[in-house]
């Protein structure tokens, strides 16, 4: 409770004198899409008379302090017509602002709001509208949220075709991926080739790679805040698509006009349905994935609204079923084996938005996130004595699971107590239940012998935060905050104080300098192989023996907003990390034993780099170019002889070019080119022999340090073209994409093997495996 007093005290001190003056009132409310009722996140509100401004929060709510009397309010949002209203403010006022979607001419297609880059105190933040994502050519035509983010500066991909995010020297577990505020622990379908987020159900995606606001915490590297659509509360809409990989359908509409809306979206891969139909009697292995998203929202009043959202998805891989039988010595033996495995997430959230006294916006939510990996194997053996007919069954069933489940409650408040201040504060509690390993084995004809081997760990993570966005002068604006957290596990309590600071200093209307500092603490680890990422990777908590992860990140940058809607940003950062873990040398998830005995603890890391982005926001031709120069290293006492070594995804150079061109209202096209330094690989360079300690001779494989060899650079060109047409009753789009247009063989993985390709079987060579050649695809989209 002592922790609570501090922010409350500050709020009271600031509010009371302001209210006593009686000259300033709140103008607050929601900004919505006029045609769908969808609330708009990040819309800008500006009072041209007082030069005071604000933006709508993650729930479309804004609050602005205005002097008593005249105000000239301007509401704007990317893709919408600017709305201007003159108000005479006599008292606190609640507005519901409806913005019209912009009908663009050929020359003014906007891909991102351009004013924010100078005004916003935050840096290292990108907002990528779903419409922009949908234009980016994708593998097999599957628009992918996470892969779209890989085109942004500071974001690197993992292996070929996958959606893993490696941000500023961080590992995938250091990304907090939120779907409507609920963490998603495994965002991958199809081993990462497709992300679990169905773009048709997504409203907005915001990526933070540094300068984190204090309302976010729990991960070191990034926050990917994905907000689902609320559902159209004006009219029914249906859209769907058929692609090479999957098909999807989305329905949305009002249950009660302007009050209650729903959204259902489903997606499923369909290849298995065909193979299982064609090869009906052959028990071939098959793979499918699906996801289902639903959201229900109800408006009780202008002040009160409730949301219920649910996501569930699963990947299922069934291996070959086998059955064989033979007769020997008058006994018929029948052997059968069946195995399947997979993984899936379930997330759900119940949220309630409420506006207190027209000044304070609150969001209270109860959320659940459950990730599970499963592997089930069944062996049935039957022996039949042919003469007597006596049958004996032997059964072995193994059911392996691992996963993590979070149940969380949090409440957040937004208010603008006085001009120049926008405050956010809140608190909550997360209950984590980790199951790194659970296996139930049934043995015997009657399941009489049951063995249960289970490792389960629970932990509680309370948190409280406060942040204040302060306009100190016209030039200087800062966002300062503090987040304090705790973690109770194994009878031990960890505590953390995480100060955050972001600021901008405006040198001119088109030029700003920005700086930020963030301290982040992460109480969980993903135990993953440095060689390859699997769904079998284990989420484990910090324990009494294994410390949590901690990072300090410092960033400075300069931002330009030039004519012709061209933005330039240059950022440089330094990040230090500690409390990292890795599998010990020679260990793997295949080894038996407790996970804590297989890891190296208390690793440290550092990452630094320079990121450049040039973006053209509008026009017939628009897009962006990014370039990153980065270095990241790690150090553990018992890895690499205690010396620093480069992190596997240390890529010195990374560049992306994204170009969109609109030929006319019916045809537009896009191209992306991705280049990055190759992944690192531990290459054995020498051998030497030794007889120690007892006299046997063995060769020792020598490499100077881990990850000592850089594989060839990765580069790829993707092309896409869309043909749009409004039919009588629907709007259709044909999309044709070409992945890897110039058919470059990028490295998927490498290994040492015999040179059998050249008939030199005795010679050991390094082999590379490439995955995707040139891959054309066609997708058909329908919208009713």
């Amino acid at each position, binding site marked *: 409770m002592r922790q609570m007093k501090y922010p409350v005290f500050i709020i009271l001190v600031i509010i009371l004198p302001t209210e006593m003056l009686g000259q300033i009132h709140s103008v607050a409310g929601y900004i919505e899409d006029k045609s769908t009722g969808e609330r708009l996140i990040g819309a800008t509100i500006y009072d041209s008379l007082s030069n005071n401004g604000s933006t709508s929060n993650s729930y479309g709510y804004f609050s602005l302090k205005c002097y008593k009397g005249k105000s000239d309010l301007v509401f704007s949002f990317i893709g919408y017509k600017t709305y201007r209203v003159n108000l005479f403010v006599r008292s606190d006022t609640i507005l519901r602002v409806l913005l019209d979607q912009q009908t663009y001419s050929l020359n003014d297609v906007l891909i991102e709001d351009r004013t924010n880059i100078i005004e916003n105190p935050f840096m290292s933040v990108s907002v990528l509208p779903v419409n922009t994502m949908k234009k980016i050519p994708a593998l097999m035509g599957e628009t992918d949220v996470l892969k779209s983010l890989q085109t942004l500066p500071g974001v690197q991909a993992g292996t070929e075709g996958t959606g893993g995010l490696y941000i500023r020297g961080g590992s995938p577990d250091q990304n907090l991926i939120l779907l409507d505020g609920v963490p998603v622990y495994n965002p991958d379908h199809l081993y990462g080739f497709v992300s679990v987020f169905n773009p048709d159900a997504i409203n907005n995606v915001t990526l933070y790679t540094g300068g984190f606001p204090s309302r976010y915490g729990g991960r070191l590297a990034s926050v990917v805040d994905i907000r689902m659509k609320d559902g159209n509360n004006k009219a029914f809409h249906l859209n769907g698509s058929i692609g090479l990989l999957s098909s999807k359908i989305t329905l949305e509409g009002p249950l009660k006009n302007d009050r209650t809306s729903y959204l259902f979206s489903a997606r499923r891969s369909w290849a298995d349905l065909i193979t299982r139909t064609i090869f009906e009697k052959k028990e071939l292995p098959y793979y499918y994935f699906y996801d289902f998203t639903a959201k229900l929202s109800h408006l009780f009043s202008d002040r009160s609204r409730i949301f219920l959202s649910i996501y569930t998805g699963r990947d299922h891989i069934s291996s070959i079923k086998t059955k064989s039988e033979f007769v020997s010595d008058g006994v018929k033996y029948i052997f059968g084996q069946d195995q399947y495995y997979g993984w899936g997430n379930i997330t759900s959230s119940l949220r309630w938005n409420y506006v207190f006294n027209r000044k304070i916006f609150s969001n209270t939510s109860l959320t659940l996130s459950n990730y599970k990996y499963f592997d089930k194997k069944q062996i049935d053996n039957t022996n039949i004595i042919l003469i007597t007919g006596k049958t004996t069954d032997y059964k072995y069933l193994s059911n392996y699971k691992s996963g993590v489940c979070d149940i969380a409650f949090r409440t957040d408040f937004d208010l603008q107590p006085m001009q120049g201040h926008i405050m956010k504060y809140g608190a909550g509690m997360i209950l984590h239940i980790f199951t790194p390993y659970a296996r139930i084995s049934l043995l015997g004809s009657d399941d009489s012998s049951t063995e249960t081997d289970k490792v389960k760990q629970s932990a509680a993570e309370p948190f409280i935060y406060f942040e204040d966005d302060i306009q100190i002068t016209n030039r200087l604006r800062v966002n300062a905050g503090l987040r304090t957290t705790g973690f109770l596990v194994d009878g031990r309590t960890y505590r953390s104080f995480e100060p955050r600071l972001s600021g901008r200093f405006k040198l001119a209307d088109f030029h700003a300098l920005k700086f930020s500092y963030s301290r982040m603490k992460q109480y969980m680890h993903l135990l993953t192989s440095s060689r390859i990422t699997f769904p079998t990777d284990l989420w484990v908590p910090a324990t009494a023996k294994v410390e949590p992860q901690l990072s300090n990140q410092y960033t400075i940058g300069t931002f330009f907003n030039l004519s012709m809607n061209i933005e330039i940003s240059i950022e440089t950062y330094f990040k230090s990390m500690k409390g990292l873990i890795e599998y010990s040398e020679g260990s793997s998830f295949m080894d038996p034993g407790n996970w804590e005995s297989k890891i190296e603890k208390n690793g440290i890391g550092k990452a630094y780099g320079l990121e450049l982005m040039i973006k053209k926001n509008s026009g017939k031709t628009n897009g962006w170019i990014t370039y990153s120069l980065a270095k990241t290293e790690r150090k553990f006492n018992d890895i690499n002889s205690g010396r620093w070594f480069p992190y596997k995804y240390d890529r010195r150079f990374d560049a992306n070019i994204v170009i969109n061109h609109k030929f006319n209202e019916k045809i537009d096209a896009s191209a992306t080119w991705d280049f990055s330094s190759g992944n690192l690989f531990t290459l054995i360079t020498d051998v030497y022999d030794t*007889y120690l300690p007892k006299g046997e001779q063995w060769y020792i494989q020598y490499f100077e340090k881990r990850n000592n060899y850089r594989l060839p650079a990765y580069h790829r060109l993707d092309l896409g073209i869309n043909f749009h047409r409004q039919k009588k009753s629907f709007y259709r789009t044909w999309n044709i994409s070409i992945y890897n247009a110039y058919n470059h063989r990028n490295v998927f993985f490498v290994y040492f093997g015999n040179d059998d390709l050249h008939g030199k079987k005795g010679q050991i060579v390094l082999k590379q495996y490439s995955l995707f050649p040139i891959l054309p695809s066609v997708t058909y989209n329908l919208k009713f």
Partner: protein
Amino acid sequence: MIFILIESSACEQILEVKYPERKAMITLNCILTSGDSILMEVKSSQSYPPQSDSTLFIKNASIALYEDQKLIGELKYREADPGIYPLKKKFQYFNYYLTDRIMAESGHSYSVNVSAPGFTDISANTYIPFPVPIISVDTSSVVINYSNSQLKSLECLINFQDPEGKNSYMLSVDRIGRYKMTYYENNVLISKTNTVRYFIPFFCEDPDVVYFRISPGSPGTIPLEKDEKDSWMSEVFITDDSFKNKVYSLRILIPYMLLNDNAYPQNPGEKFTMRKLNIRLYSINDEFYKYARSWYTQVYKKNDMFSEPVGVYNNINNGAGIFSGKSVSVDSSVVVRIYYNPSLK
């Protein structure tokens, strides 16, 4: 279908690896043993993959050895006697050797500088820890489960007091034997009796020990099976992380069948083995422990594509290998019966 598509489109090709410009390194292997003469192996590394199985000896190196920063001598190259290595001349292979009159001693630090034409000079430092006495060895007969059968075994509890500071240990068990061998040399029949040390494999279920796995089926090979309890050990390494400054009791089990004289390598000629078990507890420094642990792990895991790469611990500046030290305390209080054909139970 996705996998069929990927599989059909995926391809494998030889990667043109541009190996970094590397020249061969001097590799040095030397574990100084208190009270023993000093010898080292000095060889050249080979680029990977190796072009031959032969060892690349460096025969023209200059080696200077320092004790407590004072030069105590230069090591000379010699080609050791072939055959079974004798007690005082342990290595049958080619090596550098310092005269028998100069012994390594515990409690001292040592450093070495090695140079050879065409190679970058190397250097290394180490120290030899003091021996830790074995307080006692308690024995009893037990029956253990082994590969679905039972083995009557000798249980030994080796008790020692861990001194202050960070300490590591190596433990091995041996018996001294002699055998007579005859052979012709220059058309002259020579008869000779050699004294040898036979290492006795044992089981050790202590979870903290590091060991080189010996396959029971074919001793000397590395077993691939995961059931490590069935692995025999010829020596084990352990640090004092779990028993700092305490009396520790290390438990080993020796199946009686391994005390059978006939279980030892079939040397030609008459054979006689002494009845005393020599239980040797070596005090080793941390570098030797790290070297042994990493080397064993690399040998065991090098073909496991899922496991993390293992770099063998190396304390040689500008080169590779190990320069370390050990001192030993021996308990010979356990006397075993002579087993020629013991039953399994």
